[in-house]
C-alpha cells in the first residue's frame, strides 16, 4: 500500500484545522450565572450564544443550532479579564535585558533626556510569549501594553496599546501615551518634579511651533512632534503615573487647561482628592494591595483607596504596581481585596472589565458580555474575585483555549515523575 505523502497529510490537517477553527467560533454556554459587567448586571441561569466569535444573544432557553454546547451548571461566567497595564509580550525574564523591550533608553549613560514619544512598544510585542498562556489560563484575555519611562529615556515613555491574548500580532485598540510624574519621574527631569511641568510646557511650545525644529532647545524629532500634537489636542488617552495628592491635583488642572484626555495610574493618594477626580471624569487604575507608605509620594496609601474613590463616583480600574507582567493573575486578588475594604462587588468587577475597556478605547470590543462584543469569556469554579477559586475555561473569540501554560506543563511533568523510570526530560 502506498503511504500517503507528507504533503498530502499536511493538506488534510490544514483542512481539518480550518473547519474546526470556523466551527469553534460558534458556541452556546447554557445555564451560567452571567456577570455581564454592563447595565444588565448579573443574570442567573442564563445562556450566552456566540456566532463567529462574537456574542449574538443572551437569554434563557437559547437555541444554538449546531454550535457546541457547554453546560455551565450555574457557575459564574464573566468577560475575560483585563490583565492590567504591563509588559506582557514585551518582557520574558525581567532580569535578562535581552528579553525586555518595554523601555527606550537611547540616552543611556548620558545626562541628556531623550524625549521620544513616537516610540511604540507594540512593535516589540510577541504574541507567542510564555507569559500569555500563564495569564490566560487564569481568566485574563487582554492587557494594556505599556511603554514605561526609564532612565536614559525621559519621563515620557512612549506609546503602548491594548492587545488581546489570541495570538494576534497587532493591537486591537488605539495607542496610549505613557508619562510618569512625581518622585518616580523626577530623576528623569533634573531631579525635581517641578522640572516635569517646565519640560511639558516646553514640549507644548514645540508642538505648537513656538520653538522651531532646528532650535538648540528643540527636544523632539518630527515624528515626536506629530505624536505629541495628537495627544495634546485630546486625540488619545495619556496614562499618567502619579501618586501624591498634590501632584494629582496639578495633573487634573493641567489636563483641563491643555485639553488632554488622561487616566491616572497608581494614584495611591487618589482617595484624598476623589471628588476632584470624579468631577473631572478621569478614570483611575490602582493597586489595592499597595497599601504601604512605600515612598514619600505614597504616605497616604491605604487598602481603602479603591473603595473610597469608587464610592465618590470615580471610574476605578485595577493594575499592579510591581511585576505586573508575570503576576497579572494577581489582579483578581487586587479586586477581591478592594471589595473586602468597601468597594461594591459589581464595581470591582467593572475594574477588571468595563472601566479599562472604556478608558482605553475598546469598550465596544471587550469588557462586557453584550451582543456584538467579542466572545472573550471566562468560566469560574466560584467567585472570580476570590483567590479561593480559579478559571475552569477561557474562550477567546468563542474558541476554547487550551487550559495549559508552560507552568502547568512543568507541574504535570513533576507531578507524574514517579510513573516512569526515565528522567523527567522524557515526559511530554
Amino acid at each position, binding site marked *: 500500500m502506498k503511504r500517503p505523502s507528507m504533503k498530502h497529510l499536511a493538506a488534510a490537517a490544514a483542512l481539518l484545522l480550518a473547519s474546526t477553527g470556523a466551527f469553534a467560533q460558534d458556541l452556546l454556554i447554557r445555564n451560567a450565572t452571567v456577570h455581564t459587567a454592563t447595565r444588565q448586571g448579573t443574570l442567573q441561569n442564563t445562556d450566552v450564544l456566540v456566532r463567529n466569535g462574537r456574542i449574538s444573544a443572551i437569554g434563557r432557553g437559547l437555541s444554538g443550532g449546531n454550535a457546541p454546547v457547554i453546560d455551565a451548571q450555574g457557575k459564574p461566567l464573566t468577560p475575560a479579564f483585563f490583565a492590567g497595564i504591563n509588559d506582557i509580550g514585551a518582557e520574558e525574564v525581567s532580569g535578562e535585558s535581552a528579553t525586555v523591550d518595554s523601555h527606550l533608553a537611547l540616552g543611556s549613560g548620558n545626562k541628556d533626556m531623550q524625549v521620544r514619544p513616537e516610540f511604540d512598544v507594540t512593535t516589540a510585542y510577541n504574541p507567542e510569549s510564555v507569559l500569555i498562556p500563564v495569564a490566560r489560563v487564569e481568566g485574563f484575555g487582554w492587557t494594556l501594553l505599556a511603554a514605561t519611562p526609564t532612565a536614559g529615556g525621559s519621563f515620557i515613555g512612549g506609546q503602548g496599546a491594548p492587545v488581546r491574548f489570541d495570538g494576534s500580532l497587532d493591537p486591537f485598540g488605539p495607542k496610549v501615551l505613557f508619562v510618569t510624574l512625581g518622585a518616580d519621574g523626577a530623576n528623569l527631569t533634573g531631579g525635581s518634579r517641578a522640572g516635569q511641568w517646565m519640560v511639558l510646557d516646553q514640549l507644548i511650545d514645540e508642538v505648537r511651533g513656538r520653538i522651531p525644529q532646528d532650535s538648540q532647545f528643540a527636544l523632539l524629532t518630527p515624528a515626536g512632534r506629530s505624536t505629541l500634537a495628537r495627544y495634546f489636542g485630546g486625540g488619545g488617552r495619556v496614562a499618567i503615573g502619579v501618586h501624591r495628592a498634590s501632584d494629582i491635583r496639578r495633573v487634573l488642572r493641567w489636563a483641563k487647561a491643555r485639553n488632554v484626555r488622561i487616566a491616572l495610574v497608581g494614584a495611591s493618594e487618589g482617595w484624598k482628592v476623589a471628588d476632584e477626580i470624579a468631577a473631572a471624569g478621569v478614570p483611575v487604575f490602582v493597586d489595592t494591595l499597595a497599601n*504601604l507608605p512605600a515612598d514619600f509620594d505614597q504616605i497616604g496609601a491605604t487598602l481603602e483607596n479603591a473603595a473610597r474613590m469608587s464610592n465618590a463616583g470615580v471610574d476605578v480600574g485595577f493594575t499592579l504596581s510591581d511585576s505586573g507582567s508575570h*503576576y497579572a493573575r494577581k489582579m483578581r*486578588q487586587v479586586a477581591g481585596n478592594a471589595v473586602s475594604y468597601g468597594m461594591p462587588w459589581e464595581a470591582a468587577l467593572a475594574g477588571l472589565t468595563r472601566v479599562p475597556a472604556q478608558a482605553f478605547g475598546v469598550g465596544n470590543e471587550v469588557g462586557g458580555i453584550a451582543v456584538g462584543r467579542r466572545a472573550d469569556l471566562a468560566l469560574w469554579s466560584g467567585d472570580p474575585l476570590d483567590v479561593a477559586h480559579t478559571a475552569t475555561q477561557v474562550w477567546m473569540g468563542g474558541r476554547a483555549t487550551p487550559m495549559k501554560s508552560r507552568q502547568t506543563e512543568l507541574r504535570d511533568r513533576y507531578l507524574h515523575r514517579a510513573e516512569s523510570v526515565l528522567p523527567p526530560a522524557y515526559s511530554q
Partner: protein
Amino acid sequence: MHKTALAACAALVLAACASTPPSKPADTGASASRAPLFTDDPYPSTYQRIPSGPVLISGATVLDGTGKRLENADVLMRDGKIVAIGAGLEAPADAVRVDARGKWVTPGIIDVHSHLGVYPSPAASAHSDGNEATSPVTAQVWAEHSIWPQDPGFAAALAGGITSLQILPGSANLIGGRGVTLKNVYSTTYQGMKFPGAPWGLKMACGENPKRVYGSRGGPSTRMGNIAGFRAAFADAADYMKKRQGAGKDGGKRDLKMDSLAGAINGDIRVHNHCYRADEMAIMLDLAKEYGFKISAFHHGVEAYKLADRLAAEGVCGALWADWWGFKMESFDGIQENILLVDRAPGGCAIVHSDSGEGIQRLNQEAAKVMANGRRIGIDTTPEHAIRWLTINAAKSMGIDDVTGSLEPGKMADVVVWNGSPFSSYAQAEQVYIDGAKLYDRRDPKLQPKSDFMLGQDLMQGEAK
C-alpha cells in the same frame, strides 16, 4: 531546640559539637571565667509581654496548627499562655469573653522571611540597611543591628495576623549574616521586640544574586565561584573551631565572622538558604554534609517541587511563595503548585513565606491560592492542614515551635480571630493576640498601632484647597 541541636550533631563531621552545649541567646551571663560561646548575646531581648487578664474566645471554628479543626470551640488564655482549647470551657470570673461564633481562630501567623525594619517603608536610601554588600561573606553582621523599629510595615503585618517574624539580611552575599526573630509588638528598641530564646538564623544565598553583585568586584562571578566561596568560609570555620577548642580559658582571639559560622555548624544558629534552582539546592545539601551543618530551610526555592522527595527525606523545609516567578532566570520555572508538591512528599515541610512588606500582610491569601490550584488538579488540602504552612512549619524552621506556632496548652497565647475562613480574598484578621494581650482590633482604632513616622503626616489634609 535541644532535640534539633542533637540531630544536627548526629550528622556532624566535626567533633566540636558534642563538647559545645547549645546556648540560648538569653544566656548572657558571660562570666569572666569562661570562654565566650559562639552564640553569646550581648544584645539580649528585653521583650516583655503586655499584661492582660484572662480571655475566653468562644464558639469559633478553631484550626489549632497541629492539624486539628474544632467546631464551636473555645480558646482560653491566661498569663500570656494558652490554657485550654475545647467545647464549653469555663473561664475565670474576670475573663474577657469574646463571642467568636461564625469566626475562625488560628495560631498567630509566622513569617520566616521578612525584611521589615531593614528595608522599611518608605524606601528611604538612608534606611536601606539590609545588605552589607561589601564582601561576599559577611557572617559577622547581624540584621538586628539594622532594624528601624518604626517601620510602618510592622503595623500592616499585624493587621494581617503576623505575631512573629524572622528578619533576615538580604541575598547580595553568599553568607549575608545573622537573622533575628521578633515578636510583632512595637517597641522603641529592637531588643524590646526580640523573641526571647529564639535561635538566630544564618542567611545564605545561592545563585544569581551574589555573582551579580560581586561579578565585577573581585568575585564570585560564577556559580562555581559561589560554591568555592561557601567552602572556603566553612573550611575557615572548622579550623577556627578546632583552634578555639584547644585555646584554654580565654578561648583565643574572637572572630565575629567565624562565630556565626561555628554557631551554624553547632546547630545553634539555623541556616536559612536563599536558593531557587533544584540542582543548586542539591549542591547545597552536599555542601552542608561536607561541613557538618544542617540547612533548616531553603527560601524561595521556586524549583523545590523538582526535589520535593529529597527535601522531605533530609528534613529540610521549603519556605516558598505561592506564585512568584519570571523575574530572573532562576525563577523562570516557578509553578503555582510548588508549595503543594513540597507539602505532599511524605514528611514534607512546606512554609508560606513573604520576603515582602506586601505579602506578609496576606500569607493566608497566598495559602488560599495554593489550595485553589490544588483543587484544580484534584488535590484537596484541608484548612486545618494548610494553616500549618504559615504557623507551626514556619516555627519549626525557626526553632520556636516548642513555644509558639500552634494552639496548645502552655504555649504562647499568639492567636488570630478571623472574620471567617482565612483562605479567601475576603478574609480579615479581626483581633490579634500576642502573649495573651489583644494588640490589634479591627473595630477599635485604639488598638491599631501607628509608628512614630506616621504621626502628624496628615495634619494639613483638611485644609487642602
